[in-house]
């Protein structure tokens, strides 16, 4: 990532967390004020993660990417010793920790939890007089949870209340912890606590829900106390009495302390912020009650003059309420002054000014409903100092009624607005999730992210995967992403970069202060990579949800890649195996072709050229004492099965001919057909058939043949013309018994007559325009070269066919036989 300005790394266990979100929001605002870059590395850590060799997002942070590091809570089970050890990773940089550490070498900004909780429990025990007070714990191993538990025990002791272990329930800081605790205390242990102290607000929300479900009224039946004062604490029913941690102030001060450490010569230091009790309804108080009347109860002089005289007192009382708002601009003084002006029949400024104060409080995430206390206080002043039924009294009554309506309206606006935003976010997330779930490659991932994430206010996003399965992960690849509204155009395999840089050099390319969130693709302690979001206006849960969805998407893409890779490898291996087998089959087929054409009384030349590795054409020359047998045929179909049938055909014919060398060709074919039919139809369960003509050259000038194949061409030397001889009959392996379906035909051959046997690969050879070579061209070719040696006749015809056809579609076989009585060819 570019380092054109100071960059602060923030480590946190998550971004969607009621405790962390106010801190992160304030950090973001403070970083903007100081023109800083902020990179929030997100990972939830367990103690074992720190010692095991795992690929953690927080481990990416370092001198190459940031100038200083702020450590926020990273995991509930981490002890101060664990955190101290983890902070050593970043010893080259200034570090400030918010969770407790056991070293002075890092700065530390924390909240004094103890004082606030002591005040809160003292309130329950002292003001309300509760004696049977239960406690719901936090996770075991959590330093802060243990501290809160110890405060609970010491406060019981201080008030002379015996500790009862049965009133202590385990928990995990979760809403469910509160639900489970109520079930344990009431249903299992049969206890009836008067009050429950919860280790945090989340647990208290669960307790409230479970008590309500059982028909209990809070606080009349049971009082409940929380801890943290997260925003929701104001809106639950009843509003939660809790201990406020100044979370926003914590974020701001932690960053400011860290910035001080960047100054030359500065040293680490610690700072403690106070926590405070926030009284609402759940403890048994009224949220809007002013418990200690700030004004004297003695009646003073009646009239406006009395109100004027008590201005200072009233303003101090307002200040003592500690309400959120523009405190530095003396809003309390102005509020009281405008109130008096209204009663003095001067300018009506009270309500407009109150509205501006309420808006300020709302904008700064303050508790707007707490302003009812100020209105109550003003009413007390009025009721003690103005005559009832006076014009001023009536005017004050109307004004303060209007002020209450206004305060309630503004107080409700916050959660209502938040709810609208949540519903809108949920709708958009559903659409985004649907789109991400359909992504199958990184190229389309970038486009989908570019299309959907801007809807969530996220200006840019980058998906990176680690190169190595095992840490340290020195190299990563940026595989998808978008910025400026468009998907990144990345090379195949993405852009390789050193992981410590977080993103490749020059990405993102902006001179403006930037804020990013870096989260893991999976939370199993060994993520395959991470996502970098440019921080936008979205709530934390949007980033958390997108992390899960993008992580799932990357998982799908990688799984699909792996499957495709495996399938491709398997396919390649299968193809190689097939090629090898085909090569062997072709070799076998070629090896059984006749090798010698030396036959008494005949000159023979032949060639066979399969269209694929293994052909379905057949020819054979079998010289015997009874004469020479020559067969030519074609197995219907293409590929390996036809090649196997061709081998079978060759063996069968060869065997049967040798067993009956003087038999008529038809008899040979009857027997061969019976063998082939049984083998192909019954045993192989295939349906190949064979066109075949079997010829017997008797050595006496006679040629006897049977079987249906292509027409035989004979160049009659004496007449100087080509005779076309049909080959009637049936095909082999197409019927069980061919008896009666074949004819033996006898022809006389003259000296130098040339017999041409061929397969349909020659006559049906096609030119690019679709025209066939045809029998006419073959006849013409024979007539042209018949006088040449048989090898030359063969080659000339084949050359002509090859020159004619575009690509070879079918096997080609040609046998040229010249009748040469009394001669032996070589």
């Amino acid at each position, binding site marked *: 990532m570019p380092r054109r300005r100071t960059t602060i790394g923030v480590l946190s266990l998550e971004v969607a967390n009621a405790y962390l979100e106010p801190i992160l929001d304030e950090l973001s605002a403070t970083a903007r004020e100081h023109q800083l870059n902020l990179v929030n590395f997100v990972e939830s850590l367990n103690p074992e993660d720190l010692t095991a060799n795992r690929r953690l997002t927080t481990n990416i942070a370092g001198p190459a990417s940031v100038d200083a590091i702020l450590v926020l809570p990273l995991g509930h089970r981490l002890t101060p010793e664990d955190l101290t050890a983890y902070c050593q990773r970043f010893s080259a940089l200034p570090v400030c920790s918010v969770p407790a550490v056991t070293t002075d070498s890092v700065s530390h900004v924390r909240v004094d939890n103890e004082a606030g909780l002591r005040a809160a429990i003292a309130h329950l025990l002292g003001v309300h007089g509760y004696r049977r007070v239960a406690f719901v714990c936090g996770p075991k191993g959590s330093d802060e949870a243990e501290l809160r538990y110890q405060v609970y025990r010491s406060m019981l002791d201080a008030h002379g209340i015996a500790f009862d272990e049965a009133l202590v329930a385990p928990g995990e800081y979760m809403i469910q912890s509160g639900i489970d605790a109520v079930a344990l205390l009431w249903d299992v242990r049969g206890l009836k606590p008067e009050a429950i102290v919860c280790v945090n607000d989340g647990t208290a929300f669960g307790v409230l829900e479970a008590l309500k479900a059982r028909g209990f009224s809070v606080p009349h039946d049971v009082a409940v106390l929380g801890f943290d004062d997260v925003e929701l604490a104001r809106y639950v029913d009843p509003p939660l009495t809790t201990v406020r941690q100044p979370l926003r102030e914590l974020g701001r001060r932690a960053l400011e302390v860290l910035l001080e450490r960047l100054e030359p010569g500065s040293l680490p230091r610690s700072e403690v912020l106070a926590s405070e009790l926030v009284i609402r309804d759940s403890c048994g108080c009224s949220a809007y009650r002013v418990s200690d009347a700030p004004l004297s109860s003695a009646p003073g002089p009646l009239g406006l003059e009395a109100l004027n005289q008590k201005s200072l007192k009233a303003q101090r009382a307002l200040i003592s309420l500690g309400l959120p708002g523009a405190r530095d601009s003396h809003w309390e003084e102005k509020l009281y002054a405008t109130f008096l002006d209204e009663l003095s029949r001067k300018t009506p400024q009270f309500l407009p000014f109150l509205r501006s104060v309420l808006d300020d409080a709302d904008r700064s995430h303050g508790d707007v409903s707490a302003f009812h206390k100020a209105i109550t206080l003003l009413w007390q002043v009025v009721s003690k100092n103005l005559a009832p039924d006076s014009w001023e009294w009536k005017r004050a009554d109307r004004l303060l009624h209007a002020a209450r309506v206004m305060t309630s309206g503004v107080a409700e606006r916050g959660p209502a607005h938040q709810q609208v935003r949540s519903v809108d976010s949920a709708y958009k997330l559903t659409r985004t999730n649907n789109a991400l779930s359909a992504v199958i490659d990184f190229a389309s991932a970038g486009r989908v992210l570019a299309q959907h994430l801007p809807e969530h206010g996220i200006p840019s996003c980058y998906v990176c995967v680690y190169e190595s399965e095992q840490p340290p992960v020195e190299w990563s690849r940026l595989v998808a992403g978008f910025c400026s509204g468009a998907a990144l155009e990345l090379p195949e395999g993405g852009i390789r970069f050193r992981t410590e840089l977080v993103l490749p050099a020059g990405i993102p390319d902006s001179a403006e202060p930037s804020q990013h969130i870096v989260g893991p693709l999976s939370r199993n302690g060994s993520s395959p990579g991470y996502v970098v979001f440019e921080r936008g206006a979205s709530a934390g849960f949007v980033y958390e949800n997108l992390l899960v969805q993008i992580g799932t998407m990357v998982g799908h893409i990688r799984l699909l890649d792996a499957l495709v890779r495996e399938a491709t490898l398997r396919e390649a291996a299968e193809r190689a195996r097939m090629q090898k087998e085909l090569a062997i089959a072709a070799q076998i087929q070629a090896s059984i072709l006749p090798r010698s054409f030396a036959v008494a009384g005949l000159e023979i030349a032949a060639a066979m050229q399969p269209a694929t590795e293994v052909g379905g054409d057949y020819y054979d020359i079998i010289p015997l004492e009874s004469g020479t047998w020559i067969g030519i045929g074609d*197995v219907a179909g293409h590929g390996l099965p036809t090649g196997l049938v061709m081998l079978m055909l060759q063996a069968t014919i060869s065997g049967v001919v040798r067993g009956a060398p003087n038999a008529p060709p038809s008899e040979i074919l009857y027997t061969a057909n019976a063998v082939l039919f049984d083998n192909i139809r019954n045993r192989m369960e295939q*349906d190949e058939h064979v066109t075949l003509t079997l010829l017997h050259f008797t050595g006496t000038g006679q040629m006897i043949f049977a079987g249906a194949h292509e027409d035989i061409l004979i160049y009659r030397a004496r007449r100087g013309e080509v005779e076309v001889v*049909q080959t009637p009959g049936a095909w082999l392996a197409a019927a069980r018994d061919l008896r009666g379906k074949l004819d033996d035909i006898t022809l006389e051959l003259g000296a130098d007559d040339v017999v041409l046997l061929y397969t349909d690969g020659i006559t049906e050879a096609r030119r690019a325009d679709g025209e066939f070579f045809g029998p006419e061209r073959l006849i013409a070719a024979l007539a042209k070269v018949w006088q040449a040696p048989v090898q030359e006749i063969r080659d000339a015809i084949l050359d002509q066919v090859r020159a004619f056809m575009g690509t070879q*579609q079918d096997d080609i076989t040609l046998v040229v036989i010249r009748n040469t009585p009394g001669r032996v060819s070589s």
Partner: protein
Amino acid sequence: MTALPSGLGLAPVDEGGFSLTPSLRGKVLAVKICGNGDMAALDVLNRYLKQLHREAVHLGAAEVELDFHELYFMNSSCLKALVSFIDGAANVDKPGYRIRFLTNPQLFWQRRSLEALQRLAPEFVQIES
């Protein structure tokens, strides 16, 4: 979607260079086959001949007429499909329908190939020019 000829559960097929057009004349189920029966036509022909057999049985056809007048070429793989068709019709549903080929004497391959086909089941297959 091509409309089915009236009374027929068999649609015409036109694959560019190869087409099959069925018609029904009383008890004769006729198919005119045109073009080139090469490898590109093989799958179509195989499927169609199976449908043709089912339709002939369904209609109780006395005869299936295959008109080859405009079928210029048929390779050995397509001829193999015809052998399977004849074999199936002759052996499974015997004594079902007869098969009559209408041939074109100008196309020499038809005479050679169809005569061989006829010899397979002469009582069942008839060839006419």
